[in-house]
């Protein structure tokens, strides 16, 4: 506690009081919908001073008394200018009009030099508009698939919604939708992510420089916010594709006061299955659906309430014999309160749940049900206090109640017993304080600390193990008895220095604790993977990362941006499995686990052309990710599965005309580190591969090219003016776009798995059998909006 007090004292000492100044504060909204405009730039021309709006469209800036020109700009909106006379604190609402730009290619969601000044390196902001242009599998714009195209981030496998950030594993990413964690961001075994692009507002991924307000995962934070409905008029949006369709509607519940948005999506591949004459197909089920909703309600000028939720489910089934469903549900209730223009607060209640159910009615009559999942209840409080134009203090805390349900079998027949793997309970809490400030004109610093705490509590049967995984003690913990506590100090620091107006360097350090780990059966994420809580025998993961980056803008109007970032990450208490570990339905699963250290390091090169008809980027990552776990590989260091040494992404977009855009992506990465035989022998009449070193072999290299084409309809139609009788151009209300894409254009057979089987023509010899999932996948989607 002492340390924290010291830090907060230091922070408070930096509070500088500017007397004789007034505060101009306000909210920037879309003129037609009153939806807040986040990240808009507010600029006081006379003083060359500026501010940026926050996620709620709010900003505040301290100015000496005087007359000023307020300029507000944001991509996709017409520049806004207004003269004001400031002689007292002033609160204003600025309404921005959506500009022509909305229809043009516009990649940049920020001012040219924002990225240079931002002290945080390793941040990726995805523009939902840009995302829709990039071809992905099955033609569905997808946040996670697009983010995988950025340097330092790679896909966890063909078509997977899992991703690796800077050599970390996929469960080390905190995936948030409106502050609620999503435990399994994948649909249809990964080919779709849970994010419906129609329902999203902003998407940010932090590869490093993670703000102290986030905690719980050591590799990255993917922070997704859902769109708010329009407070002005009703709108509809949707898309019809080969595999899925989506529909969104939004509008005012009370004009300028309350809004609603509901977005839904469903696949219908199962309808095709039904067409088949083959009973194996026509009695199968395979679909998913999801729903996003958000209600926003403004109470007076100082308070705003939003309630949002996500609900999704995948259903797989096979006549009456096999039924499998899984899905996430989240709910967030958030109260935003403004104390004054410099001080505001967010209070949130968050619920998050993941569950899977399996029901088997076997022909032998051994019928049973399986249920497993995880559920969180969270309370969160965040404060933002402006201490000056370039000095903002953030502080707050949260407390999460985790309920782990590793598995339960319910018997539906006399041939099987009810079995339940004991539930686990944990309290994860954190408090943080941080400060973002500019010192002089060139130096930005963003620093803070988070203190996290994890308590395991009963009822629980606690097992203690020796080094060989043999139970040495069994302790029964009573209800609410805390039996293990971990405390983590997590310092965070980011700095940037502007060398000149087009160049900056950044450095950062962060430490993160992670109190839960996903026990994965494949490494790429499966619906039946189980989260395991930290406990007396499973220590929390600790990640330390240092990074250094050089950022530059160049070309006419800074049309290019480029960066080089290097990082080193040290990871403690990384989990691996003992030989022959059973991770499903194992009461003593912790005995199957081993912990060791990991590290990764690498360099990310990035160049992007962000203006003009021709846009795109090239990213290259050179990286290693290694592990050392006592008990595995004879205690010697080995490559983590995600040790992709080279990773290249090329994304190109070209506007042929105002209505026609073509795009292309190319990805290449070194094959995953895998364990292949190092010999063979015969035992029990079988030819058996002999395995020696862990992950010492490589899958074949992965590469693929995708193409996309987007054709928009005409923006205007000719209409007769009733009064004059003349024909004139009128903007159409109903707009539509065709999106065509081809995944894997040159039909590369990328290895999904390589398995070793006895050669049927040559007994005693193995052959390596490669399975590729897709050849060419064409798709077409028709999107509309009115």
């Amino acid at each position: 506690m002492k340390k924290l007090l010291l830090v907060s004292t230091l922070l408070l000492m930096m509070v500088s009081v500017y007397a004789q100044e007034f505060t101009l504060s306000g909210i920037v909204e879309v003129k037609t919908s009153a939806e807040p405009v986040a990240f808009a730039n507010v600029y006081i021309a006379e003083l060359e001073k500026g501010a940026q709006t926050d996620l709620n469209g709010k900003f505040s800036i301290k100015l000496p008394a005087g007359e000023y020109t307020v300029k507000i700009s944001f991509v996709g909106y017409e520049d806004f200018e207004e003269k004001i006379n400031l002689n007292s604190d002033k609160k204003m609402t600025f309404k921005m009009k959506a500009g022509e730009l909305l229809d043009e290619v516009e990649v940049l969601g920020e001012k040219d030099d924002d990225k240079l000044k931002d002290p945080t390196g390793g941040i990726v902001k995805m523009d939902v508009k840009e995302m829709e242009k990039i071809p992905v599998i099955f033609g569905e714009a997808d946040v996670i698939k697009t983010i995988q195209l950025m340097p330092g981030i790679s896909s966890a496998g063909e078509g997977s919604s899992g991703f690796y950030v800077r050599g970390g594993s996929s469960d080390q990413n905190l995936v948030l939708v409106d502050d609620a964690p999503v435990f399994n961001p994948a649909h249809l075994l990964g080919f779709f992510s849970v994010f419906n692009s129609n329902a999203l507002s902003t998407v940010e991924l932090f590869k490093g420089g993670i703000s102290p307000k986030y905690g719980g995962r050591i590799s990255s934070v993917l922070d997704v916010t859902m769109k708010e409905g329009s407070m002005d008029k009703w709108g509809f949006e949707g898309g019809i594709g080969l595999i899925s369709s989506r529909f969104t509607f939004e509008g005012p519940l009370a004009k300028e006061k309350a809004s609603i948005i509901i977005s839904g999506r469903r696949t219908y591949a199962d309808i095709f299955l039904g067409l088949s004459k083959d009973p194996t197909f026509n009695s199968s089920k395979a679909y998913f659906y999801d729903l996003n909703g958000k209600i926003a309600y403004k109470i007076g000028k100082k308070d705003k309430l939003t309630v949002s939720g996500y609900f999704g489910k995948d259903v797989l089934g096979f006549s009456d014999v096999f039924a499998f469903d899984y899905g996430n549900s989240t709910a967030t209730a958030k109260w935003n309160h403004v104390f004054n223009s410099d001080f505001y607060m967010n209070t949130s209640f968050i619920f998050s749940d993941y569950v899977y159910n399996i029901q088997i009615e076997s022909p032998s009559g051994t019928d049973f049900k399986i249920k497993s999942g995880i559920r969180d209840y969270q309370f969160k409080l965040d404060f933002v206090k402006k201490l000056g134009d370039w000095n903002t203090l953030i502080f707050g805390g949260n407390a999460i109640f985790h309920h782990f349900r590793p598995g339960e079998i319910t018997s539906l027949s006399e041939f099987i017993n009810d079995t339940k793997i004991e539930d686990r309970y944990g309290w994860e809490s954190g408090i943080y304080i941080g400060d973002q400030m500019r010192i002089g004109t060139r130096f930005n610093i963003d620093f803070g600390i988070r203190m996290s705490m994890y308590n395991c509590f009963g009822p629980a049967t606690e097992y203690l193990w020796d080094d060989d995984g043999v139970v040495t003690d069994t302790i029964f913990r009573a209800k609410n008895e805390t039996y293990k506590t971990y405390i983590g100090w997590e310092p965070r620091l980011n700095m940037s220095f502007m060398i000149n107006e087009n160049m900056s360097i950044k450095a950062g350090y962060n430490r993160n604790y992670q109190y839960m780990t996903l026990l994965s059966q494949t490494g790429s994420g499966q619906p039946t993977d189980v989260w395991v809580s930290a406990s007396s025998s499973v220590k929390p993961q600790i990640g330390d990362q240092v990074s250094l980056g050089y950022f530059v803008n160049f070309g006419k109007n800074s049309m290019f941006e480029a960066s080089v970032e290097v990082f080193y990450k040290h990871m403690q208490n990384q989990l691996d499995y003992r030989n022959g570990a059973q991770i499903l339905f194992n009461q003593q699963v912790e005995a199957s686990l081993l912990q060791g250290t990991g590290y990764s390091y690498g360099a990310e090169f990035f160049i992007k052309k962000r203006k003009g008809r021709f846009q795109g980027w090239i990213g290259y990552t050179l990286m290693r990710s290694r592990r050392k776990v006592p008990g595995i590989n004879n205690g010697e260091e080995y490559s983590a599965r995600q040790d992709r040494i080279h990773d290249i992404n090329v994304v190109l977009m070209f506007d042929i005309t105002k209505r026609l855009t073509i795009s292309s992506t190319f990805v290449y990465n070194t094959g995953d580190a895998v364990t292949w035989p190092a010999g063979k022998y015969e035992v029990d009449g079988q030819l058996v591969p002999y395995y020696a070193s862990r992950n010492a072999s490589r899958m074949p290299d992965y590469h693929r090219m995708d193409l996309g084409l987007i054709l928009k309809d005409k923006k205007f139609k000719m209409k007769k003016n009733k009064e004059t009788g003349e024909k004139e151009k009128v903007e159409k209300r109903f707009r539509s776009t065709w999106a065509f894409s081809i995944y894997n254009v040159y039909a590369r057979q990328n290895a999904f798995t390589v398995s070793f089987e006895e050669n049927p023509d040559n007994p005693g010899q193995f052959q390596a059998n490669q399975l590729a999932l897709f050849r060419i996948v064409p798709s077409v989607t028709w999107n509309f909006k009115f």
Partner: protein
Amino acid sequence: MRLLYIVFTVLVFTSCEKIIDVDIADSDPQIVIEGIMNTDTNIYSVYVKTTVPYNSTDNSYINNAQVELSDNQGNSQMLTFVGDGEYQTTNMNGVVGVNYTVTVNHEGVVYQNGSTIRNPVPLDSIRTVFIPENTVPGVDEGTYLQVFYTDPAGLGDRYRIIFSRNDTVFSTVDDYFLSNDVFDDGLQDIVSFFGDRFKLNSGDKVKIEFWTLDEHVYDYYQTLENIISEGFAPTGVPDNPNSTWTNGALGFFNAYSYDVDSLIVP
């Protein structure tokens, strides 16, 4: 719509398999020891050899080891080398409840493994069952075999079923019928032999051997099956089957008891 369906299926769900060339880094040879015995009166063998390189077509037998079989009743005997890594006992039989140990001494390194013959669990019955068309997905109309046994109360029972038809023992990678009592302790269990390979014709002779296994032997067969049939362990990382030989030898030693039943398909 029909055309669309075909196009869709062909393009999207045609996963493709092919045989590829792989670079293999062979390791040094590792010792492999295999031994099996039961309650019959018989001559039993222990086989000693080493692993061979991935592309090798040869075997690599160890013919200069000393192999001993002992039990916890104070009996022991040296096995006789008969050629190609094979060492034989005298004519003998295993006794229920006795723990047997094999000790192999090769070039000064001693490898040891023990296994206890457990009380045999009897089969309740074996029966044929007729499955009509389209009642069980993936199973054609036909006559199939079902095996019934009752697990004794108390966790830790482990079984392996050996299926033979017309004196042909099913012994491929797909024929590891392993069963435990983790989820059905003390209950009757049914094992069904469904699928094309097990389709029975009138007059077929079916024989079922029902082995009661020591827990670690079951564990060996289970992990062996995972590796050879799926190509990977349940944790996604391939590993060697769980051997209980000391000093890192591969293989197993199985001393088991069994029940047997057979029928002629009517």
